[in-house]
């Protein structure tokens, strides 16, 4: 069946309590773009950690960035991960962009697994960024300007992504509350469809917005 059979309004309905559709392109494209910017910044930092460039860009703290990126903490993370932490950051931000871009404008209901995976990538990444900033302050004792920028971007991404993750979780919660059946919750998570799941989506969409 062609995509033309889906009324556009069905794909773009607002999801209460929000006055917008959290899966709309207008909501997701800025996340993808910002995540891509953070990935590019992380590429620069990882190029320094790999030794391809002599110094990381830092207009505020100067040599301090290099100390952070070649600190014992960074080296011990390399020992554990097998790749530099900045390279892992590149992958995590690219993951945000990729998982943010995939799915239709009603993916909060049609592909909850994708939205939750997106949330699992975005939200822990924000927490890790804050932890790394705390490491700079209390363990390394130096500051890295671009690391701070990416940490701020991570927190913005968490803020922007939360409405969609919340909508998917609310949908799954309604499925459970209305039916109390694990197999229905399983079906809802993987984006399967039946009458109960249609009804659960409608319950969420028909909630009163204050």
């Amino acid at each position, binding site marked *: 069946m062609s*995509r033309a059979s889906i009324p556009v309004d069905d794909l773009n309905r607002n999801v209460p309590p929000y006055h917008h559709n959290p899966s709309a392109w207008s909501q997701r494209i800025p996340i993808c773009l910002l995540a891509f910017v953070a990935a590019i910044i992380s590429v620069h930092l990882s190029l320094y950690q790999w030794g391809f460039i002599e110094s990381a860009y830092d207009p505020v703290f100067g040599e301090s960035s290099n100390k952070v990126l070649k600190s014992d903490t960074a080296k011990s993370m390399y020992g554990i991960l097998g790749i530099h932490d900045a390279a892992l950051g590149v992958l995590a931000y690219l993951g945000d962009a990729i998982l943010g871009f995939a799915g239709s404008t009603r993916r909060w209901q049609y592909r909850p697994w994708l939205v939750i995976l997106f949330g699992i990538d975005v939200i822990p990444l924000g927490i890790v960024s804050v932890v790394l900033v705390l490491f700079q302050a209390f363990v390394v004792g130096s500051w890295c300007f671009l690391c701070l920028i990416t940490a701020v971007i991570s927190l913005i991404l968490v803020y922007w992504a939360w409405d969609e993750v919340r909508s998917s979780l609310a949908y799954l919660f309604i499925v459970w509350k209305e039916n109390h059946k694990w197999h229905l919750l399983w079906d809802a998570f993987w*984006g399967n*469809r039946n009458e109960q799941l249609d009804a659960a989506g409608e319950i969420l969409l028909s909630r009163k917005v204050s």
Partner: protein
Amino acid sequence: MWGRVVEIMTAVWLAGSPFIFGVQSDATILWADLGLALLIWTLSGLSYWHPTRHAHLLILVVSVGMIVWGRFYVTPPPPAHENHIVVGLFLLMIALIPNEASQPPRVWRQQTST
């Protein structure tokens, strides 16, 4: 099908990696990378055919294998093996992307549930 296109492009990078990292004289890495690239091309290509449309999910297994090989074959990993870890982690994300990723799943494209 953009997920599959990105997988095929990543496999091109993997096939060229032994030459980029200057380890083409190591027969193990050279043939493993070429073999893995061929496997990824095959699985991505099969995903275009309806009966084998989920073949891209097998790339997840290939990815985990690459990560484990890259991380533990030599410690600490040299650049060629770091490349395996990075490519493996990247493919782990891409291989999850559905074929018609920007459209609703087929079952949701019908007017009513069955």
